[in-house]
């Protein structure tokens, strides 16, 4: 499938704590500078697959590597240090802190001068620069997502993992958000994304993974999946 993927979670099997397995031999990977999207019906294990790659799951078998390095046994915090950034679906910002403070907290582990990275984030999301001193909780849903993504970008990650970034966001804002995600990918950061809005997500995806009940069902490029009649019938509403 992928020749030397940058980030790969291979043959993952596992679940939460001591509960039943949610993932069964699931493989997800993303190449450098590309966008990989995980789609599927509700309860398919999409978010679970991403959390497994980030180390928030009890993985019974399988392995995760980034840039050739095996990180299967690292804690989530240690994986952040390896260049992974994770944007959860809910509660992904510090609502009582200002936008600027949110970004500062994103860069907490960095020792060097973060102002340049912050300017890059502000260039990417101009509205955040406008509202930098405002409490993040006062922003609209789409703007909060921008804060969440901006916060993750402050660590200068190599991989950005987004869990349903357009959840609860209006269609226009969703288009804008996807445009930004493409911009981020252009800077060389790999993007791994779980999405409910399957059609729009696959449109911008270099690689798509359709998961059903914790297993890989279809794996192909975004455009191929979009034009595949079986995929369209099952998941994209024809």
């Amino acid at each position, binding site marked *: 499938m992928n020749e030397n993927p940058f980030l790969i979670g291979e043959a993952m099997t596992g679940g939460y704590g001591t509960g039943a397995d949610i993932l069964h031999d699931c493989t997800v990977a993303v190449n450098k500078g590309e966008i990989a999207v995980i789609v599927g019906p509700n309860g398919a294990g999409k978010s679970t697959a991403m959390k497994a790659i980030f180390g928030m799951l009890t993985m019974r078998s399988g392995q995760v590597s980034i840039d050739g390095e095996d990180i299967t046994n690292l804690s*989530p*915090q240690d994986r*952040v*240090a390896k260049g992974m950034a*994770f944007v*959860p679906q809910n*509660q*992904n*910002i*510090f*609502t*009582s*802190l200002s936008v600027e*403070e949110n970004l*500062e*907290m*994103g860069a*907490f*582990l960095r020792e060097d001068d973060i102002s340049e990275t912050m300017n890059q984030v502000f260039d990417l999301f101009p509205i955040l620069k406008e509202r930098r001193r405002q409490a993040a909780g006062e922003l609209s849903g789409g703007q909060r997502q921008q804060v969440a993504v901006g*916060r993750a970008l402050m660590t200068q990650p190599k991989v950005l993992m987004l869990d349903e970034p357009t959840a609860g966001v209006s269609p226009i804002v969703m288009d804008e958000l996807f445009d930004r995600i493409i911009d981020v990918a252009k800077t060389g950061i790999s993007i791994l994304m779980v999405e409910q809005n399957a059609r729009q997500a696959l449109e911008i995806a270099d690689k798509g993974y359709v998961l059903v009940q914790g297993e890989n069902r279809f794996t192909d490029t975004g455009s191929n999946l979009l034009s595949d009649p079986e995929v369209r019938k099952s998941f994209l509403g024809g």
Partner: protein
Amino acid sequence: MDILHALIVLANFIIVPAIAYGSQLALGALGITLVVGVLRFSNFAHGETMAFGTMIVILMTWLFTAMGLSIYPLPTALLALPFGIIGCIAIVLLTDKFVYKFYRKAKSTPVVLVMASLGVTFIMNGLIRFIIGPGDQRFADGARFIIKARDFKTITGFKEGLAIKVTQSITLVTAIIVVAALFWFLNKTRTGKSMRAYSDNEDLALLSGINPERVVMITWIIVAILATIAGTLYGLDKTFKPFTYFQLLLPMFAAAVVGGLGSPVGAIVGGFVIAFSEISFTYAYKKVFTYILPTDWAPTSLVQLLSTDYKFAVSFSILVLVLLFRPTGLFKGQST
């Protein structure tokens, strides 16, 4: 002329004492609200923490007085304050290490930590009584008044006097300095911001690489500093008795809840709300009304709503009312 006299009486018996008492409550409530915000439980041992810090200050004050050290007109206790703070920090960190840490690691519910803090209360109280005895300790030396009632009358020619004690002004000045320093720390330093982030969203803070044990340690240190200062100021102003500080828990918690649990600004505002309420609801307004109303209407009774014994009933009632109608408090804290 008479309105002025009424105002002076109000200032002397309500406003000045309430400002002092409110500052002390505010500092105490700040410590409580920080623990709720960051450590996520109501620390019933806060009163004893204040008492412990004050006890060390008293012991060192006795030592300094015996050594002949003095900073007249300021009370010697201020010299001893840093030592009391260090002692309090030590006991608070030890308590966390041997008591609260266990429950934190076990992810116990907040109510378990509250019960643990009750146990800590009893042990600390016993320890304090063991060391310094259960009696009253007056340790305020130095000048007593900035301006005496009699002098005020002489200077201004009014019939009513306004007295301001040295301890009351120290309380206000210290409270202002401490609060300013605390707000600077929380809002302008990286560590302070990380504490606010940890209080806001624990999981996201951990994801950002914020070290939880460090945040906990710094919180306890700040709490110990606030508690010692608040306890010392209160003890200087009134007197030190091991049981008094446990009773102060009620107005301090009321202040923290009224202001909004977890909100530092709320704790300060709440402190003054409670202090002013307690004092103004239990004051005998006979003199004030005698000055304000026409002579025929002058009251014969004391015009006292509640006797001073009911001071704690006032804070308790305010606490209950706030919990019933606006549990998140004035500044939208947590509603635990």
